[in-house]
């Protein structure tokens, strides 16, 4: 009997504003507990929230990126419940009228492209953190509260139940993760909780109405997301096949035991007593604001992929690689811009180097693109000398390594020697002068009569040996293509 798994995700994206959504306190991660909690975050008596326009702007950017509708008037509501890390006793969140309605994300899966529709995206504040272990001086019965995270802006992105496997859900989450970083609204740091998912999972026979769902809370890695969904779907299927039925629940995933556990059932669900927050007038977003955000919007990955294919002549695979992150795409674009020639050959050359040498070196030394020892302009400087034949591929790699090393050593890169200076100093200029190459070829033919005889007897390998001799005689500087051509001609 085959089952269909139905998955919808609710993703909490921490917006990359410097200050909190309703207060001026910093959102930086990792400060000492409660040092980044203002009077508003502590919910002292008498304080009031003021909306951070930067958070609203990021929500608009997201809405535009996914083709959703931006509500000109959205409403902040209070979600009431008691918990020690929720200082006001309510969370301010958009409920009935969110800022973004609809939209969709196109996801590349093994079976091809899949469109995941979005229900909505709404602004809300994060809660603080409860610490139950490792408190200084605390016995087992003491809990601590850290309100540094309280009031951090979140955009909760709610998908339709459009995914049919854990792999699809992960592909959607990865695409969304790349998108929010691409448009600069979230740092994407999953270890720090900047991007976390709740998964709604149900199972059914294909064509049957939706089954009863369970919500798995707070999945903060793609691996956990995959494992939690797989476990939960199996659990539900087994339950039904054993004659039982799924009970609507909120569940937690335990990565150590790879299982989900019930947190609370439907009957224990809170009555959050939502109502519009009287401290905040409806959030008004006018057309002019939306237009400003639209104009400042970067080219989206999908559009850039298409452009790389049609305008740069880059293949689909390489285009997808180059647009995997905004930083890499920007790096590629900057290197292209710094080259004098802007043709398909030049673009292909840049793509090969960015995805090849550059990415390999970056992986080896584990540095961020922004901090890479070779900035895009410098790579362009190098590739210019490859394009004009000054450097052979192997010589260029040699110079690249030297630049990488020099750049890693210096903090600014300003003192790093120019590509041309290195070529000059190390005499790396490729010999492309036909006369000089002919002279070298003649020398080698004269000095290797036996090999020449082998070649003439039909041993193709002998030819390679002669090429090697010429290259050696030129100290590696002869243009290999020219050496090939001249040698063939001379050997007739």
């Amino acid at each position, binding site marked *: 009997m085959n089952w269909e798994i139905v998955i919808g995700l609710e993703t909490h994206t921490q917006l990359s504003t410097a200050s909190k959504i309703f207060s001026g306190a910093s959102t930086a991660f990792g400060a000492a507990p409660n040092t980044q909690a203002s009077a508003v975050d502590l919910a002292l008596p008498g304080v009031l929230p003021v909306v951070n326009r930067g958070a609203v702007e990021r929500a608009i950017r997201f809405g535009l990126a996914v083709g959703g509708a931006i509500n000109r008037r959205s409403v902040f509501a209070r979600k009431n419940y008691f918990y020690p890390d929720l200082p006001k*006793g309510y969370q301010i969140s958009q409920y009935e009228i969110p800022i973004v309605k609809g939209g969709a994300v196109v996801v590349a899966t093994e079976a091809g492209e899949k469109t995941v529709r979005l229900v909505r995206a709404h602004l809300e504040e994060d809660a603080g953190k409860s610490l139950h272990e490792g408190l200084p001086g605390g016995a087992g019965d003491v809990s601590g509260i850290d309100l540094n995270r309280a009031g951090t802006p979140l955009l909760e992105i709610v998908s339709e139940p459009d995914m049919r496997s854990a792999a699809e859900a992960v592909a959607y989450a990865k695409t969304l993760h790349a998108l929010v970083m691409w448009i600069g609204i979230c740092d994407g740091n999953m270890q720090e909780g900047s991007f976390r998912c709740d998964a709604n999972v149900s199972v059914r026979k294909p064509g049957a109405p939706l089954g009863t769902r369970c919500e798995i809370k707070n999945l903060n890695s793609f691996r956990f997301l995959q494992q939690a969904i797989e476990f939960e779907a199996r659990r539900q299927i087994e339950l039904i096949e054993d004659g039982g039925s799924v009970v609507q629940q909120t569940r937690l995933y335990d990565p150590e035991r790879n299982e989900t556990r019930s947190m609370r059932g439907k009957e224990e669900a809170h009555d959050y007593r939502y109502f519009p927050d009287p401290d905040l007038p409806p959030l008004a977003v006018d057309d002019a604001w939306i237009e400003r955000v639209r104009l400042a919007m970067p080219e989206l990955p999908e559009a850039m992929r298409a452009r790389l294919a049609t305008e740069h002549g880059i293949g689909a695979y390489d285009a997808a690689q180059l647009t995997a992150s905004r930083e890499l795409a920007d790096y590629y674009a900057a290197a292209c811009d710094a080259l004098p020639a802007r043709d398909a050959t030049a673009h292909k050359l840049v793509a090969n180097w960015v995805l090849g040498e550059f990415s390999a070196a970056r992986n080896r030394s584990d540095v961020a693109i922004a901090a890479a020892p070779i900035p895009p302009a410098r790579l362009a400087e190098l590739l210019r000398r490859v394009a004009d034949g000054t450097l052979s591929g192997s010589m260029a790699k040699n110079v690249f390594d030297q630049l990488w090393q020099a750049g890693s050593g210096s903090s600014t890169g300003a003192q790093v020697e120019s590509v041309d200076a290195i070529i000059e100093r190390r005499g790396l200029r490729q010999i492309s002068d036909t006369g000089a190459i002919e002279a070298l070829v003649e020398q080698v033919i004269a000095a290797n009569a036996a090999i020449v005889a082998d070649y003439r007897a039909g041993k193709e390998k002998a030819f390679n040996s002669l090429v090697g001799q010429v290259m050696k005689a030129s100290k590696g500087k002869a243009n290999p293509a020219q050496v090939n051509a001249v040698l063939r001609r001379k050997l007739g």
Partner: protein
Amino acid sequence: MQTIAELSRALSVRTLSCVELAQDALARIDAAGALNAFVTVDGARALDAARAADARLAREDAPPLTGIPIAHKDVFMTAGMRTTCASRMLADYVAPYDAHIVERLREAGTVLVGKTNMDEFAMGSSSETSYFGPVRNPWSTRCVPGGSSGGSAVAVAAGLIPAATGTDTGGSIRQPAALTGVCGIKPTYGVCSRYGLIAFASSLDTPGAFARSAEDCALLLTAMAGHDARDSTSLARPAEDYARSLRAPASAKPLARLRIGLPREYFREGLEREVAAAIEAALRELRALGATTVDVDLPMVKHAVPVYYVIAPAEASSNLSRFDGVRYGHRAERYADLEEMYCRTRAEGFGAEVKRRILVGTYVLSHGYYDAYYLKAQQVRRLIANDFARALAQCDVIAGPTAPTCAFDIGAKADDPVQMYLNDIFTIAANLTGMPAMSLPCGFTAGGLPIGLQLQGNYFDEARILDVAHRYQQATDWHRRSPPSPQPSPHGGDREQITAR
């Protein structure tokens, strides 16, 4: 007791010093301890401020209210001076910051002497629900002064200080002003910032002021009003001098061309005979000053009290959630787990009326009841505002009684919340609409208890209301009557005991 305007003149010509004025206020407050008008008095701080005020007057760089003693309702944050909201929950709470209006009034030169008593969390119409004991009416200490800002009203009525702040959520400035024979103004919602005011019902809470005259109210409001970026409901408007029209010389018919609307609904059953008579007399006086009166209808206003008692508790139930014992305020001493910590803390920290309203508010917001109660109440609220908009198209101001009765005996309505709530029947609408309103003294009952006239206006029409009240006060002297000097109370020392409990 002199007005702010009179005291300011005396201070500026140096016939009176700020220190003398502050000492006088502190002595009066001390002598009137039996009224229980204050929760906290800080004499040393007041005298320091008074000395600084004298220095400023000497340097001649003094802002308009320099040296004027003032007290703030204990709902406003005052840095370094405790803010209790008259609740056990916050009995020892000291805020690290000043409320916006506290800041503004300090910058205007006022000398803060202390914090006034009130109904716990501003929930009440009698100032009896305070953790620090009931406030007494100086006109008859058997009676309540009204509420919730009863302490502020009494402090001004008894001549202890010339000015005090209050908050008005359903009449909490105007009703005690009426019951104690002083002026009290509730400006348009959004004119004074709510930052630093402990929220009761956020969409209704309005900071305002008590003083002896309309002119003084105008001076206070001019200092208090203004945009505050920390309150998203604070309105960005140009600064306004609310006393600007008051300076025009008095004339025989200063209110010529003024149309006063008289809502038929305000002159029906439930109105005490003596109150009705005093209001009629006041209207005759206003007509004599040139005003014409016109009957208006406010058909939806009969729903104001029930609408209010859905919306206000709903907002309160959420606003008071932060008092959970986790970060500040009262926390139960013994508890086995988190749930019990919450339950005991809140059971011990809140009084009966606060609990009643949290329960009602929680109920009306509950799943399945929201539409029938909260949403419906908001819809009726809009209809009430429409009524006022229509009425104010036919007239310039609306007049009527502030409260249906004069001051009642302490305890008389304490066990009957509905009777207590009905005392706000005429004041609540202005909170639901957000329109400005004030109460001014307009007579006394045979038993010597004050009666208040309420004037309501359209949005941002504070200056016009104040002008009408000022012209009335130029022609009458109700606002100059003072209650008998405070007698040593039979329960002398009451306040100290209550404060210490």
